Every structure is written in C-alpha cells, then in structure tokens.
C-alpha cells in the first residue's frame, strides 16, 4: 500500500491503543479524535490525484472532489459524537466524582446492588 495511507492506518491503530490503554475517559475521547483525524487524513490522501483544488478547474488536473465532500460530512458527525460523549462523561463524573473508567465500573456495580 502507498506510504501515506499506511502511515494513516498506523495513526488509526495508535488511537485505538490509546483508547484501550488509558483509564481516563477524557483521554479515551482524545484517542477517538485521533482515530477520526487518521480517517480524514486518509480520505484527503486518496482524493489527491491531481495538482489543483476542485474550484473552476478541469477534471484532468484537479483532485477528486467526492472524498472531500464525504469527509466534511464525517467531520461534522465526529463533532456530534464528541459533544454527546462529553456531556455523558460530565454527567457521570458529577454523580460518581471520577472519570477513571475502572473505578467508574466498580462504583456503578456497587451502586446497583
């Protein structure tokens, strides 16, 4: 595979490892943001098959506009998911006073008994 695409897949994997390794929920969300950045990067890399931006240019010497339009959609989707999960984290930490996921799971298990 092309080098840039391979590097963006590497960033994808690192983001997921951050989501598993780190116990703090905020940092898990940062890892999710890194995953989304990697996807955006790979879309732009694939769309770049010509020198010029897709404004008033011939199809021969411009980039492919379709992946750019798609990734703008998914950037907005990522922002929506981020804000929702952030408000969930705020609510949970206002009840249990921690954002550490292990402690949170323990306290919720105790709370349900």
């Amino acid at each position, binding site marked *: 595979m092309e080098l840039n*695409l391979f590097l963006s*897949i590497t960033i*994808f994997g690192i983001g*997921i490892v951050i*989501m*598993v390794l780190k116990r703090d*929920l905020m940092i*898990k969300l940062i890892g*999710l943001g890194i*995953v*989304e950045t990697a*996807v955006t990067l*790979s*879309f732009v890399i*694939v769309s770049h098959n010509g020198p010029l931006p897709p404004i008033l240019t011939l199809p021969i010497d411009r980039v492919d506009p*379709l*992946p750019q339009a*798609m990734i703008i*959609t*998914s950037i907005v*989707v990522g922002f*929506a*998911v981020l804000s*929702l*999960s952030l408000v*969930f*984290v705020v*609510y*949970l930490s206002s*009840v*249990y006073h921690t954002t550490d*996921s292990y402690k*949170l*799971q323990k306290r*919720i298990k105790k*709370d*349900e008994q």
Partner: protein
Amino acid sequence: MNSDLFWLNGHNMLLLPILIAVILGTLRLFTKNRWMNWIELLSMAFFTVIVLFFQRPAIFVVGGWSSAIGVEVKYDSISFWFIFSLLIVWSSVKMRFEKWEPSIESMLDYLFASMYALFISNDLFNIYVTIELTSLISFLLVGHGKKPSRVWAALKYMLLSAVALNTYLFGTLIVYYGTGVLALGALKLEKIPEFGLALILTALLVKSGILGLSAWIVDAYSKSETPVSMVLSGIVVNAGIFAIIRIYDILPSNLKTLVLVIGIISTFGGAIYAFGEKNFKRILAFSTTSQMGISLIVLGVSPIAAAIYAFFHSNTKALLFSKNGKISTTIGALSLAGMPPLAGYFAKIAIGESHPMVSILITFVTSVYVANLFGPDLKWKFSPFEIPLEFAILSLMFLIPFGGVMYTTEILATIAIGILVGKRISFPNFGDPFELEEGLAYQMAFLAIAALTVVKW
C-alpha cells in the same frame, strides 16, 4: 408505481416517508399533546403502506442524476421485509403512549426516517450516514431515565460503535480507492480490494449484535427502559444485518465462510451465556446475539430468507421485551423456539432444507433458555399495542404453501425436551466479560482475523 400524478412518481413516493417523518418529528418538538401521536401513526402508516403495496422493485438515483455522481437507492423484496417490520415495531412502540418529553418522541420519528432511509439505501456512504444517525438516536434513548448506570451503558455503546463506524469509513475509502464507485450496483462489476471489504464487514458485524463483537449489547438492552429495549431489539439491531445482506454478494468467498463461522459461534455462545441467566432482560439480550448468529447462518442459504428471519425476529423480540403478560410472553417464547404454526418455525425451514441437523440443534438450545423466561412475576394482562406484533408473528402462517411443512414432529419433540431440560437443570452463570476495553479488544482481534483471511502474500 407507474401512474404519475403531478410530480409524485415512484422515486418521490419512495422518498416521501423520510421527509414526512422529518417534518413530523420537527413539529413534535413544539407540542406536548398526545393526539400528535395519532397524527404521526396514521400518516407514517399511510405513506409507508402505499410504498409497501404499490412500489415495484426498482433502482433510482436520488434527484435524477446519473448513478456515478448521485446517491443510489434500491427497493426490492429485502427492503420490503425490513420496512414492514420497522413499521410494525415502530407503531407498536408509539401505541404504548409513554409519558415521554417531546424531544424523545421526535427522536423516534427521526429514527423511523433514518431506518427507512437505510433500508432503501444502495450506496456505501449513504449506509454509513444513516447507520450513524440511527446509532446517535439510540444512544440518547438508552441513556434516558433516572439511573446513572444507563448513561454508562450508553457511553460504552457510543465509544464502541464510533470506533466501528470509523473502521467502516476506512473500508469505504479503500473500496473507493480501488474501484472509484460507491454504488453497490456498480460495485458488482468491479474488482474490489478485499482488505476494504474486511474492514467494512467487521464494522457491520459490530453493529449487528454478534456475541463479543458488540459488547455493548447486554448492558444497553438490560438496563434501558422497556420501550427503549423494544426499539433497540426490534428496530436498531436490524441495521447491521441489513447492511451485511446488501454487501453479501460482493464479498469474496473466504469472507463468506468467516461470516458463517462467526454466525455459528455467536448462535451457540449466546445460547450458552443465556442458559445460566436469571434476569429476564439479560436472557433476551443474549438471545438476541444468538438469533443474529442464526440469521447470519440463514444468510448463507439465501438473502431473502435472512430478511424474513430478521422480520420474524424483530417482531418476536419486541413482543418479548415488552414483558406485558403471560399471553405475549408465551406466544413470543414459542415462536422464538420455533413452534410449528408460528413464525419462528417457517423462518427456520430455510436452514432445515439444507442441513436439518443444525436446525434441530438450534431449536434445542433456544428452547432451553426460553424455559427460563417464565418467572413468577408474569400476570394475565393484555394491551392493544401487542396486536400488530402478534399478528405479524402469526401472519407468516400463510407461507405454508411456499415454505412447506417438514420435521414437525422432530421439532415439537425437541422443544418439549429442551423446555424440560431448561426447567430441571440449573446451569452455571458465567460473568460477562463485555466491558469497554474488552469490546475494543474483540473488535481489533476480529479485524486481524478478517485481514488475515483476505491477504495474499
């Protein structure tokens, strides 16, 4: 529809329910009145039934562009079964007339719009957008209520499916990189890079409630409110399986075998987890994983059979999750186990034709955990919202001439033995290794397996 009145041709009538649902959902935010529910029910039922009865199988491009630059939508018999089950479950949830705030009601309308749009979608990126919308609505529904543990279940669901959908997007990108098209109809002719298909398949399996891969399913189903569980298990869980059916015939053969294997694992693993459970909703959650595995097995036989199976399963599971009374629970449980006059039996015939032994085995494990559903707290009770679900379960009886009747006595005997075993023997209860980190680990492990199956060194 061939008769165009004004500009309402087939294309527009196919898209009309989405727009009506969006308008109604937006208007619903401004009013608290209960009669608004009636308006929503009647209008959605009217426009959807028009589509279901008069629409012929067809492929449109939204807005009438050429297929290369527009979004392609496709209506066929698979879409028919899924939209039919969506309409039934959605209207039965609306008929409960819960005391919800307007925002939740409007979200149900948006959910109808997005699921309908998914069920007619024939474009990889459009499938992504609609699945994302569906899952966002379901996060909010899961967290609704007073308990904080619900919010934790919703957050877990959200993080897991966000990772899965980013994986899907990456796979879509790689498919587009190799072929240059997104429409599934045109993809059949191209030579598709299989790595991208492996990524897409992993993401869709995570969304479709397979055991382990979708680690959110147990908490999200067992902790949320009753109508929310009905919505999740009757409507939302169909999203993944529908998308898998759509992409099934462009999958390479080794990925098809992988789907079959994971289906068998999920069928029996989910059943084994359900054996030891005592909690009603947790049994049903594990049974959902098991049934989704069965529908993956059926998918190996024929796509339309899988669609019918999903139809039967969503109605049955919605009826069971309502936990309304003895009648509904008995009908749902027997239909789940595959009692001959009920829907589950005719849905299982598809397997029975090719390999009967598997069908008998599935019936046995299902009836073993179905026996645990009948607790002491069930009452003789009946509510009007059950009617469409029960009618839908009984309605597949008219398939007798097509499906044919086979193995009736064997299946009856198996159900009896299974229920006896479930009543007598008490199985050990395994804990649930389905927390957030484990779920991510399962996803990545399956992704690695799928990548190893498609790679050519």
